[in-house]
């Protein structure tokens, strides 16, 4: 019987297979950041173990880093200690690090692909659940805990339980204004936050094949919000074009050999998935969340649902609690929900294409009174590219704040946070209670919806702006 893409990549990495034991898999690329690695390095030290493959390991600083005044010492002493700990550990163990201020610094899941390190058919891990992002290249990529980080540092392998396979096939044309973010938010609402549990999801179909690498990364990134072990997309010419010429992409004869191998990384015709979901791209619309988990979403044109409409008692209770936390009432049109803050950035939507999309909406317009809009590029390289294209000026002219690269308000570990009761439209990945700051309320949206929302002051899509002429500079 044929094999799926995920099964092929898995099989190509089995170091040891024995009856009654989980497969031991080789890890091609290990990404590190400051938050989930200190205890792992401590473990190595305690046991006198080295990092086995420093040549397959790379670190960056992203979760804690400030997005203002980066040339000054970090104000929060605890954050500073954590960053200093990473620097000391990387120096002691010989791990390559891109610290704050370095041109390759940025959100770990933006940095790996842009360096050309994330490649088809590789296994990629990081102590961060959004490692699923790298699956956009046809890599088997997943988030791990700190004990596993230590395990990979020490052995370059992981014992892993078997997985199930799911195909999510999206055929047809995405309507105008509908993005990869809308698609994945709709998928999560459809299958639920536990719907992908135990599965590696392969996204396929004509609508997926047409997407850019940036859009594919947005989709794979949020696989974890559906509970999936990983998300993957088969590599194709779009993937190869993105990689060719990047610093760590194969060169010369290696490039030819790599592409020949990468072309084999497709699910066989006769392979069988454990579960299949089909979605008609044409049926999708701009999508936003109304609740406190990423599965609580609806089209922007809809209203806040009535908890009583949920048949499952658990979901009903969850919706009741969510509306209470979010300060929303059943039946309220989503377009009437006013926001205080708009955040454009994160490993989900902090790449150049996302910034271009948001800039195109705010260009010649103004951020609404009383709304603060933060634009945080996913990496220094993304920021430099945006500056070259003049996007930073578009944002600042509209009244948005142009910040330094990092995770920023996606999880509020640095000073970029919502105040209690404050509401955001955010291009990030999690609308959990307090995620962007204690008592903060988050609506997950695409970059286009984020930008339109900033202009209107309420949840909106660019289509809502079309009949309103762009404001001219006075």
């Amino acid at each position, binding site marked *: 019987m044929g094999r799926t893409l995920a099964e092929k990549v898995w099989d190509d990495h089995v170091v040891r297979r024995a009856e009654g034991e989980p497969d031991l898999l080789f890890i091609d690329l290990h990404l590190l950041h400051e938050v989930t690695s200190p205890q792992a390095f401590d473990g190595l030290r305690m046991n006198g173990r080295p990092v086995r493959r420093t040549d397959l390991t790379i670190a960056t600083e992203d979760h804690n880093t400030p997005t203002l005044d980066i040339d000054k010492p970090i104000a929060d002493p605890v954050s500073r200690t954590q960053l200093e700990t990473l620097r000391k550990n990387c120096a002691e163990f010989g791990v390559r690090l891109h610290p704050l201020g370095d041109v390759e610094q940025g959100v770990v899941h933006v940095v790996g692909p842009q360096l050309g390190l994330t490649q088809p058919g590789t296994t990629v891990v990081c102590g961060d659940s959004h490692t699923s992002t790298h699956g956009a290249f046809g890599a088997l990529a997943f*988030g791990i805990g700190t004990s596993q980080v230590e395990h990979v540092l020490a052995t370059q392998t992981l014992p892993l339980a078997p997985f199930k396979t799911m195909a999510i096939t999206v055929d047809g044309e995405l309507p105008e204004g509908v993005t990869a973010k809308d698609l994945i938010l709709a998928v999560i609402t459809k299958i639920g936050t536990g719907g992908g549990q135990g599965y590696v999801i392969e996204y396929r179909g004509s609508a997926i094949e047409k997407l850019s690498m940036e859009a594919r990364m947005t989709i794979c990134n949020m696989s974890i919000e559906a509970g999936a072990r990983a998300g993957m997309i088969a590599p194709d010419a779009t993937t190869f074009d993105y990689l060719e010429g990047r610093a760590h992409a194969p060169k010369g004869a290696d490039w030819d050999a790599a592409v020949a191998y990468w072309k084999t990384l497709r699910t066989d015709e006769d392979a069988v998935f454990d579960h299949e979901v089909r979605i008609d791209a044409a049926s999708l619309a701009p999508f936003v969340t109304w609740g406190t988990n990423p599965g609580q979403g609806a089209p922007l044109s809809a209203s806040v649902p009535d908890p009583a409409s949920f048949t499952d008692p658990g979901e009903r209770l969850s919706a009741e609690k969510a509306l209470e936390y979010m300060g929303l009432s059943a039946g309220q049109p989503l377009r009437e929900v006013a926001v205080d803050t708009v955040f454009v950035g994160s490993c989900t939507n902090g790449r150049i294409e996302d910034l271009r999309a948001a800039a195109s909406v705010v260009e010649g317009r103004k951020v609404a009174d009383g709304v603060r809009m933060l634009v945080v590029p996913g990496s220094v390289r993304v920021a430099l590219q945006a500056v070259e294209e003049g996007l930073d000026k578009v944002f600042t002219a509209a009244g948005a704040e142009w910040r330094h690269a990092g995770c920023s308000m996606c*999880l509020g570990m640095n000073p970029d946070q919502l105040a209690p009761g404050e509401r955001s439209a955010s291009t990030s990945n999690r609308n959990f209670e307090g995620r962007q700051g204690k008592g903060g309320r988050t609506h997950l949206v695409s970059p286009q919806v984020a930008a339109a929302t900033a202009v209107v002051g309420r949840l909106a899509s660019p289509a809502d702006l079309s009949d309103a002429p762009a404001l001219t500079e006075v």
Partner: protein
Amino acid sequence: MEAFTTHTGRAVPLRRGNVDTDQIIPAHWLKKVTRNGFEDGLFEAWRKDPDFVLNAPERQGATVLVAGPDFGTGSSREHAVWALQNYGFKTVISSRFADIFRGNSLKNGLLTVVLPQETVETLWKLSEADPQAEITVDLVAREVRAEGVTASFELDDNARWRLLEGLDDISLTLANEADISAFEAQRPSFKPSTVQV
């Protein structure tokens, strides 16, 4: 790792589904560089509410957390497991756990037990009616026992063995050093390297 064989303790009935790891331990606690001292961060936001179940005097010293479905979703932070353990929990029962959280738990000796939602309901009612009611989680017999409840649960033999013995995964893997070296020797040259170019 802490070994787990069998544990008997009082329960905390947490009637919530989709408890994500941001609720278990908020991000600002993640700046710590140790594995301990997370107990005060456990469910920090919810504990501000005096009516939150963990604050009830009769729940003090309880060691068995009985939670709604999809416990531990979201972030991969192992700090969530450390926070539960630092607080005093030995085991968590739910009808469904997020994969990464479950993996992290088992690596630290916090036993995550999957039981059908009906059984979780029964345990909730039992513990709510009598906060002194004890629940036994027996990994040897793969069984949960409480008054009126005997429920078997699944855990694969390998994971169970590692928990019962409190084994260190890294040592187990390093025993297969020859396999790792052999695999490394045949990796194609086009595979990525992080060595600065």
